[in-house]
């Protein structure tokens, strides 16, 4: 467990043990298998509310699979099996008492391709708060929608056309709409799986600026193939290769003097 920050004591698999003093979420000895293939091998990682953690690594390295463990998205894949210990605020999210629908409200997710519902802009954002009973229809819900769109930096662009379909927005606006939708249910953790790979540089810049603004309110984990993006938006970087967490540390260190040869070769674009 050498790549874990010292502040976070190693967790046993006993439900009574609290999480480390500052970690929002902890993963210990996490393994994910698809049938006979081990996609994630014995990974330990902590994520913190005041930091963005970037997961980088070559395609198939297990970073997205690992990310999806945090809101149990892997449950939806038939032959995927997750083992190990994942906690949010010390609570085992794979525990018997966990309501997965509630969990996914606490742990929001933004995907590679913007996927607004085929509903109005308003209803895209209002959907979550409504089904989770977080706001009564009417002025309360209007307020939640407005605040969420403001936090997502989209309000000024859409306030005059909230009744139009979300799909009429540009790609970058759709992605920010999806972020507004995720934050509307007051999540604690936001997972982003290559959120900018379908966006142009300007839209990417807006999403990155948004990530920076959201940092501190949510623990954010982002999977990205863009080394530059990881360098720009994150405070901690985790490099995965072939299912293993190879290196984890402050982003500035990982990109200027990585400790492991594999990390170094990957970020420099060198392959033997």
């Amino acid at each position, binding site marked *: 467990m050498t790549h874990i920050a010292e502040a976070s004591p190693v967790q046993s698999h006993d439900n009574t043990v609290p999480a480390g003093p500052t970690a929002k979420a902890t993963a210990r000895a996490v393994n994910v298998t698809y049938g006979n293939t081990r996609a994630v091998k014995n990974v330990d990682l902590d994520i913190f509310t005041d930091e963005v953690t970037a997961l980088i690594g070559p395609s198939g390295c297990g970073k997205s699979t690992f990310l999806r463990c945090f809101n149990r998205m892997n449950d939806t894949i038939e032959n995927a099996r997750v083992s190990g210990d994942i906690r949010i605020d010390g609570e085992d999210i794979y525990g018997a008492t966990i309501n997965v629908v509630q969990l996914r409200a606490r742990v929001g997710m933004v995907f590679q391709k913007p996927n607004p519902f085929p509903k109005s802009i308003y209803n895209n954002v209002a959907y979550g708060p409504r089904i989770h009973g977080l706001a009564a229809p009417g002025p309360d819900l209007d307020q939640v929608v407005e605040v969420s769109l403001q936090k997502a930096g989209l309000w000024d662009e859409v306030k005059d056309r909230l009744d139009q379909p979300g799909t009429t927005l540009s790609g970058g606006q759709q992605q920010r709409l999806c972020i507004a939708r995720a934050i509307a249910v007051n999540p604690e953790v936001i997972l982003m799986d290559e959120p900018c790979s379908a966006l142009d540089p300007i839209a990417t810049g807006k999403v990155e600026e948004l990530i920076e603004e959201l940092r501190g309110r949510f623990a954010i984990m982002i999977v990205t193939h863009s080394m530059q993006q990881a*360098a720009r938006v994150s405070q901690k970087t985790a490099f995965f290769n072939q299912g293993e967490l190879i290196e984890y540390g402050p982003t500035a260190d990982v*990109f*200027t*003097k990585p400790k492991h040869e594999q990390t170094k*070769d990957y970020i*420099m674009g*060198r*392959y*033997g």
Partner: protein
Amino acid sequence: MPSLPKHTLKAYDAELDELRALVSQMGGLAQSLLEDAIAALLLRDSKRATQLIAADKAIDTLEIEIERLAVQTIALRAPMADDLREIIGALKISAILERIGDYAKNIAKRATVLAEMDQFQHMAILPEMSRLASGMIKDTLDAFVERDADKAAAVRDRDPQVDSLYNALFRELLTYMMENQRAITPSTHLLFIAKNIERIGDHATNAAEVVYFSATGNALEATREKKDRTAFATLDDWQSK
């Protein structure tokens, strides 16, 4: 040092190779300019010294070329880790070599003046200082090309030798000047020449520190031995000896 695997993009490797080659070439020119200027001085070859004054231009041109290529590579390749440190290293070393070139050029200028003067005191220490400083430049550049941190650290450890020779020469020249007023002008030129070489040694040391950082990502420990004591010298120090 283990060599790094090649980049997936071959053109990127080619650019880094070119950058290293340019730095190496620039170092070679600065080194020869120093050696040739000292040779011209000792041979009292005013014509050769005049040619050398113009030769410094080639060094300046290379610095501009290195700057252009480094900026281009940073802009187009977004270098990371070792690659980034190496490119920044190339930029810093080229600026240092340009300065070394200026010092060597200044030696050539003084050589043209000294060649016209009465036979000045033969200075056995000068070529020795120059040989040491020139060796430091060469080994720094080799360490850069080979990414050899140990070699760079060893260069820095040699600077005190240059400083010691400079102290000795300083004392010797001061003695001549006290004994004979007519020796003051040539001795002052010689003193500046020696000071130039001493500064070249310092610059080579700085370049070696850059190479060390470029190779390892860590700064070389700050404690380095300084032997140049002439900044604190008074006339009394020498008269009492």
